[in-house]
């Protein structure tokens, strides 16, 4: 089985988010970049599936040369090979279009992404890829099992879940529950240096959206501390002052 895992290069989850140039640019100064945590779940499941059934796991990233440490990390975790589309990822449409072009020339049995990226919180690429490739897609899956040429997936719905069977190939966005992220071992780290990483040039794609500025959440006022022996006071304030109960 040939599996493609799409990975994004995102700021580490502990990053304090700040902006420069009058709040129009994300300040990457001193920011550590990592594999998007959900993409790591997708990668872990892809590796598990090929361990059982044989096959390969290719990771693809749309990014400039600076993302290569993240791609090498994916190779160290256990991906077979990697592709980098050499371009700044402008928006989800751009990224999905680049990956779709690659997949048209190099078909896969299964394409996985993370459920969303933790930087711009899009959960768009999986479904866009599905549409661009005319394949079924499931935006957020909690479980994924493959048997022969079809898969069983579990997807979350508000207040429950759905269980679906889908013939391969299809596209899905992995969430927690699909797999536990894998930590690379020393052998993986050593072999990652020599695994193939192809760099391809982007195709031309229309610009569909542009970020024109950023805002940070309004700071909250001083906390109103209520004595531990009088929770009734809290209930009263939530009712009369905050008016939320």
């Amino acid at each position, binding site marked *: 089985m040939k599996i493609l895992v799409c990975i994004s290069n995102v700021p580490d*989850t*502990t990053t*304090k*988010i700040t902006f420069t140039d009058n709040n129009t640019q994300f300040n990457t100064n001193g920011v550590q970049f990592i594999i998007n945590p959900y993409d790591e779940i997708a990668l872990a499941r892809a590796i598990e599936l090929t361990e059982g059934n044989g096959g390969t796991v290719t990771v693809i990233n749309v990014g400039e040369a600076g993302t290569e440490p993240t791609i090498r990390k994916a190779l160290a975790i256990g991906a077979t090979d990697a592709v980098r589309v050499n371009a700044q990822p402008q928006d*989800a*449409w751009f990224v*999905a279009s680049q990956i779709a072009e690659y997949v048209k020339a190099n078909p896969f049995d299964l394409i996985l992404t993370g459920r969303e990226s*933790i*930087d*711009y*919180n899009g*959960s*768009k*690429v999986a*479904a866009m890829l*599905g*549409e661009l490739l005319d394949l*079924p*897609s*499931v*935006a*957020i899956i*909690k479980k994924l099992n493959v048997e022969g040429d079809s898969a*069983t997936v579990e997807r979350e*719905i*508000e*207040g*429950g*879940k*759905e*269980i*679906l*069977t*889908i013939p391969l190939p*299809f596209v899905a966005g992995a969430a*927690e*529950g699909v797999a536990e992220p894998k930590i690379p071992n020393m052998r993986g780290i050593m072999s990652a240096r020599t695994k193939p990483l192809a760099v391809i040039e982007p195709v031309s794609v229309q*610009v*569909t*959206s*542009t*970020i*024109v500025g*950023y*805002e*940070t*959440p309004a700071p*909250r*006022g001083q*906390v*109103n*501390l209520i004595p*531990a022996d009088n*929770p009734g006071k*809290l*209930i009263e*304030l*939530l009712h009369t002052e905050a008016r*939320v*109960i």
Partner: protein
Amino acid sequence: MPVLIYAENAEGKFKKSIFEAVSYARAIADQNNTSLTAISIGDVSTDELAALGKYGADKVLNVSNDKLKNFVNQAYASVIAEAAKKEGASIVVLSNSFSGRGLAPRVAVKLDAGLIDGAVSLPDTTGGKFVVKKTAFSGKAFALTELTLANKVIALTPNTYKVVETGATAQVEDFSVETKESDFKALLKEIVRSTDKVSLPDAEIVVSAGRGLKGPENWGMIEELAALLGAATACSKPVSDAGWRPHSEHVGQTGIAVSPNLYIAIGISGAIQHLAGISSSKVIVVINKDVEAPFFKVADYGIVGDAFEVVPKLIEAIKQHKAVA
């Protein structure tokens, strides 16, 4: 050219998040001096459909077709895109629900439309532009995103736009579309509903607990508190990682982002990743025995105390409050 809103139903009923999305789409229609058409797919009663008028829909397209009874991502996306074309709608609004997240990108590609998912504000149309605020960096910031194509798709974050009732009744029309076989490859086997619980993404009140609870056996009081408040239960990442609670309850940067009216955090220290997922809550209450816990810095109300002493007292206080009210 009307605005089109996809009104997703859950077991034949519309939820508050859909009334929010219809109200939001109404406001966009007003910005553009146009009408609002809603589309519903599946089995929904005519009364329920017409009631969408209350929130601003002028017309409701009803797609009732045996093959489309349950959600099929590809087929639903095709129907919504067809309706947009037929109505000549250049703006399509959806709720950024679990299903909405699967639909919006496909609809956008079909319509050659720019897409904003996770919208939290009305479009700013100053100077002929179309700029929408959306969540970014998992609640640590907002990105002001401009859509530059003629067609636009917006998926609205639940609990961020107020329901507005205008009081009218919508006209309901049957809408039939040709479905294509290749849209039905994914087969629904089973729907499992946890009916006894408030769903976390929809919840107006969330009661969340962390490692301070010491073990899964101590969640009884959390569930009791949540039940009394009509709240959903949630937890921090270490708690779901340890298997004390299901992953679907994990709130934070790598879990679910929530924006309830009231978020009550019990025994959670307030790591930056957790705070990211809850920062758009309207009111935050923190109960923690450590006065230095970072969570108190973003809280509106706090109680410094042991959860095992404070929560039972809080439960009693709510019972009393309810008895009086």
